[in-house]
């Protein structure tokens, strides 16, 4: 494995988003994963509609919460195409699902994987490179006050409650860390990013990991 890897270096990660007061982190994380895997597969970097997933993933609860696995299961079963953000813009609130004709341009999911990588974060690093950015669920209670730096304490792994996207890692320094793209705007954390120590399942980062295939 390379000592460091970052999907941003491949031009595969869109700018940081802001979910505002909408509890749609689960949708932001999987849409971010789809956008990046599309680039990994040779496509252009596009901003896809998070609102479409919030409104249409019927087994979830829109801005009131949801599951990355349930959302990917819905995308995989229905083969619903994700349209662009400009066609279905983010409104930070629940809305009626807009349907598009099957001929409409968009990106559909071929398959997905969901695994627990606890105790196997090195394997998780390999899968990040092979599969693309990984949508994970973390315990983010202490993230309310986070300003930057590598999270090594105050982060339990018992209460997963927030979905984010792991886009890279760095093991060149004293403390190896995951690079995590959040959806709370650029004024949070390090320009919208968080860094989490690798190897201790910090914040439960390895407990619920999903990858998408296009």
């Amino acid at each position, binding site marked *: 494995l390379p000592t460091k890897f970052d999907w941003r270096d491949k031009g595969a990660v869109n700018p940081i988003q802001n*979910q505002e*007061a909408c*509890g*749609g*982190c*689960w949708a932001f994380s999987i849409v971010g994963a789809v956008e990046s895997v599309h680039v990994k597969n040779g496509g252009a970097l596009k901003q896809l509609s998070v609102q479409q997933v919030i409104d249409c993933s019927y087994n979830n*609860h829109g801005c*009131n*919460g*949801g*599951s*990355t*696995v*349930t959302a990917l299961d819905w995308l995989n079963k229905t083969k619903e195409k994700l349209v662009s953000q400009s066609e279905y813009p983010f409104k930070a609130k629940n809305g009626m699902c807009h349907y598009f004709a099957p001929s409409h341009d968009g990106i559909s999911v071929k398959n997905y*994987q*969901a*695994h*627990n*990588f*606890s105790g*196997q974060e090195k*394997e*998780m690093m*390999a*899968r990040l490179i*092979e599969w693309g950015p990984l949508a994970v*669920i973390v315990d*983010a*209670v*202490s993230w*309310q*006050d*986070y*300003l*930057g*730096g*590598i*999270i*090594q*304490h*105050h982060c339990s792994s018992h209460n*997963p*409650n*927030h*979905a984010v996207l792991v886009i890279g890692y760095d093991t060149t*320094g*004293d*403390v190896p860390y995951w690079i995590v793209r959040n959806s*709370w*705007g650029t*004024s*949070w954390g390090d320009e919208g990013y968080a*860094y989490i120590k690798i190897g201790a399942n910090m914040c439960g980062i390895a*407990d*619920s*990991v*999903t990858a998408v295939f296009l």
Partner: protein
Amino acid sequence: LFNHQFRRNYDVNNQQEYYQRKINFESSIRRHVYLNSVSKHLTNHSAKYGVNQFSDLSPEQFRETYLTAQAKVVPKYTPLKHGNSLKRN
């Protein structure tokens, strides 16, 4: 400074809300002191905690609004089953 930086416009007629936000902010400051007191014994790269856009929220409000993801129980990853391509490489 916080109100200006994070564009807070509290309702001047709702003093109760203003004082509740102020109490939340003061609690946040106390929390930051505690969180940073552990981190300072570590390296320069350790996490830092301080004022951000969530500092006027109570932990309960923060949880209710932002910590809304549900985790499903997923199978343990087994390299032999799922990592064939790595093995081949």
